[in-house]
């Protein structure tokens, strides 16, 4: 066990790991982590395996592994389910929804955080206080009024002039900008940047907009990536606002929700739908794995 000798001191140190007691603690931890990993992964494995079973098998064999795990069989299950489920349109819609959400989030919250941090016009204090206080406000209080707002946007009352936002992506798109947490993340990121950047650029004749796009925004890449991961994955799981606003077949989370109570969809096909719906977030995870697991170190939001 060469590794033990070089261990950085923590709860366990390299000297502990020479003793039986220390070794026992270490391998007990290892076993517990292995157990945690198994618990974390088994439901997912079961779902994938069940997706590859035949309908008959599910209701008769009650086994964890499918009988036939040949390559041809798996390919045929995937293509057959994809044909049956008709998820293609909802996938495209969800991608469109998520990209719109991201654009609005970055522009609205990015600008907001920038102004609160750097330009500080009159009234900044008031706006900032409001932003902080609404950060932790439970959303229940505004659930119904928000819905009423969608019916004749942007008016709170039906004065015959508003636009009905139902059956459009606008409630989610615009709502994506109403994220006070993101505003504060951006503000903190801009706070950490020296004002001399701004001044230097302005002396060189840069406008406020130029400063923002050419200098400030690129320097907050970690926050942008953090928000991108969050917003892009969330579109594949958020189903509450879409449930109120959209028709049942439009976005993938809604389709998943609807198919669960569809008697015509067999369990194996449904599980394949769960697998399909999980693929896009896993792609995002695979791309940004290092950043996500590295513990994105921008969590400190000062109130």
């Amino acid at each position, binding site marked *: 066990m060469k590794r033990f000798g070089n261990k950085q001191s923590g709860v366990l140190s390299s000297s502990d790991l020479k003793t039986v007691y220390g070794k026992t603690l270490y391998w007990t931890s290892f076993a517990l982590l292995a157990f*945690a990993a198994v618990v974390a992964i088994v439901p997912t494995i079961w779902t994938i395996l069940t997706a590859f079973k035949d309908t008959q098998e599910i209701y008769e064999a009650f086994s964890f592994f499918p009988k036939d795990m040949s390559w041809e069989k798996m390919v045929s299950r995937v293509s057959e389910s994809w044909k049956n489920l008709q998820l293609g349109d909802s996938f495209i819609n969800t991608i469109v929804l998520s990209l719109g959400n991201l654009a609005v989030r970055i522009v609205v919250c990015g600008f907001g955080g920038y102004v609160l941090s750097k330009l*500080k016009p009159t009234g900044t204090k008031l*706006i900032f206080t409001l932003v902080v206080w609404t950060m932790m406000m439970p959303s229940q*209080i505004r*659930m119904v009024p928000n819905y009423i707002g969608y019916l004749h946007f942007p008016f709170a009352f039906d004065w015959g002039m508003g636009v009905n936002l139902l059956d459009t992506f606008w409630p989610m798109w615009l709502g994506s900008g109403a994220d006070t947490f993101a505003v504060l993340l951006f503000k903190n990121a801009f706070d950490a940047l020296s004002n001399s950047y701004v001044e230097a650029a302005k002396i060189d004749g840069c406008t406020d907009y130029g400063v923002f796009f050419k200098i400030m925004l690129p320097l907050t890449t970690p926050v942008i990536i953090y928000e991108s991961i969050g917003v892009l994955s969330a579109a594949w799981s958020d189903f509450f606002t879409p449930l109120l606003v959209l028709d049942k077949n439009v976005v993938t989370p809604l389709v998943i*929700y609807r198919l669960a109570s569809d008697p015509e969809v067999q369990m194996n096909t449904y599980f394949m739908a769960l697998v399909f719906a999980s693929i896009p977030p896993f792609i995002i995870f695979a791309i940004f794995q290092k950043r996500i697991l590295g513990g994105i170190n921008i969590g400190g939001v000062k*109130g």
Partner: protein
Amino acid sequence: MTKKPTIKPKKLITRRNNLNGWILMLPMVVILYLFIWRPSVMGTVWSFFNMKAYTVLDFCGIDNYRKVLTHTQFLPTLWNTVQYVLWSFVIGFLPPLFVAIMLNEILHFKGGFRVLIYTPAVIPGIAAMLMWYYMYYPDQTGLLNMILGKLGAETQQWLNNPDFAIIGITIYSSWKGLAGTMLLYYASLQSVSVELYEASIIDGAGPLKRLWHITRPAMEGIILLNVVRQIIGVFQIMEQPLAMTSGGPNGASTSLSYQLYQYGFNSGGQGTGQAMALGVIIFLILIVFTIFYFWLNRKVEDRY
């Protein structure tokens, strides 16, 4: 207000800054106004009004509140919600903490463990909820009953059992949320100073003593913040009962927020006013915890 002495060029810059600042900030202010500030205020105002579906009729005093609070299901639902919070601590509090601490000490297969333990957090929430709905399926097609069947035990009703529904949902939520909380703890473990550990080794403290006297004090702040955040978060639970149990069986897993959803969107327009009254009630309960959270947050930040 006192008059500020102004110098001309400075004033000019300030005025331009003001205009540009407000133009850049306008989208945020408008969206926050339309999606958070106005609906919060209107929700409170309209909770005192009769509603016909989504149209405001006339002032009715505390009628909506009386209807919500005197409903026979109100107290059971409130108790259910408290049970969600309690169970979320019994089941979900220690695992992320211990996993983070152990992961920080382990040298073998560390990266692999991290990826595997993180997978539940990657699966989209709605897909994971329905996955667990099938894990809990009351016949042997469900994974849990399949295992029981293999062991020769009797199959269980799981989510159809009123005594288990809340626990079952909480097990799911803890499974789904473990990795997120774990990463939070893991990040704060990185800031515990190695010198402290080394000094304690020289002083002859064993591993468990070090865990208690060095790791614990360093983590206390973030743990406490997380506890309050968990109370606030779980108290608002809604999507899980909506997707997994529809609040059943017989209302046994109905939470306050799910009840609000029922009032607001599933009552044929009869309960809109009550939904907003219930929203205000939830707000009043949670504001206590929220203020405590902010106070705590400031205190914890001052310490570091």
